């Protein structure tokens, strides 16, 4: 019990430590910037699109756009939130164009979702847990993943930035270009959905 409460209190500082330093964007420093943030941008895009190829292509596109508009970066936010914002806009545009293609959505996306979900679940860490615990943890992660996949894209973005990227709500607000209250509302709705899924899954697995 004590451990849970400590975790509840410790969540704030833990995510706050993920805040990146402000990065100047001179042309010659750009490669270092890519090196520092490419994994995060790829992760954000993969979480949003659940498509490795699209995530790879859009990661490149994200950095190209950042380079093209580097003079607009004023250093008011961190480079990470600025890049995440570009990546999310690219993901929204991509999803819009993907939605336009009915057949692609019907066949390819469903297949990709299943593959991607299986991949996420298969790569769960914690090898020290017992086989039973691993199965339960895998099932729980699967339930969270499928709940996240069904969320509207803005709720999903907020949810993923919070729990995959460990960003603070203020950083998420900067990245998504939303008000703090809107971010909280999105996250709360997402968590209510996820909790419902977990409850349903628990009922299914309980004897």
């Amino acid at each position: 019990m004590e451990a849970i409460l400590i975790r509840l209190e410790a969540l704030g500082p833990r995510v706050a430590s993920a805040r990146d330093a402000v990065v100047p964007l001179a042309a010659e420093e750009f490669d270092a910037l890519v090196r520092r943030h490419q994994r995060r941008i790829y992760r954000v895009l993969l979480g949003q699109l659940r498509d490795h190829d699209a995530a790879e292509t859009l990661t490149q596109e994200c950095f190209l756009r950042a380079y093209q508009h580097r003079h607009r970066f004023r250093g008011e936010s961190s480079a990470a939130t600025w890049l995440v914002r570009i990546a999310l806009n690219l993901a929204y545009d991509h999803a819009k164009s993907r939605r336009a293609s009915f057949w692609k959505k019907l066949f390819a996306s469903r297949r990709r979702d299943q593959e991607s979900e299986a991949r996420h679940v298969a790569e769960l860490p914690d090898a020290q847990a017992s086989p039973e615990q691993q199965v339960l943890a895998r099932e729980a992660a699967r339930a969270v993943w499928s709940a996240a996949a069904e969320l509207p894209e803005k709720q999903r973005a907020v949810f993923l930035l919070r729990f995959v990227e460990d960003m603070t709500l203020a950083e998420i607000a900067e990245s998504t270009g939303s008000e703090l209250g809107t971010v909280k509302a999105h996250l709360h709705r997402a968590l209510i959905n996820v909790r419902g899924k977990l409850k349903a899954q628990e009922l299914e697995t309980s004897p």
Partner: protein
Amino acid sequence: MTHHPSGVEWAAGLAGDDVPPDVTAHLKAHLNECPACRREYERCTESLAGFGAAARNAAERPEPFWTRQRAEIAARIARRRSVTLRLTWVTSMAALALAANLLLRPAPQQVVWDPDDALLRDVETSLWRSAPASLSPASLLVQEMNQAASSAARTESEKENPQ
């Protein structure tokens, strides 16, 4: 026993950032005394943490993937920069050529009116003309009268000798 937390309180607690102190206090107090909620809270936080770790793992790629990606980004930036440079170069060259053309073009020569030259030209024109310049309208009239007379004569001779 405190009442069970509402959905919003649960969500605020699980969000774990910027949680109002009264919600944290109530959640803490309730979790201390309600094993079912404690179990559920523990399960939710563990699942969320497990999900985050799994999602981060799923996005991991071998180092060559990231190296190749950086190289591609650098190459695309270089290509774009060279196109931009070329465009700038072509535009500035065109502007330079236009400016040079405008600046170096010889100024149009001003025609200086020379009375002697004009007199000589008038003389030459008069020499080549069949009638003097002063009689030009009259000579045209004569020319037209001659043409009319010759056509009348031709008509008459055709009437007299109709083949």
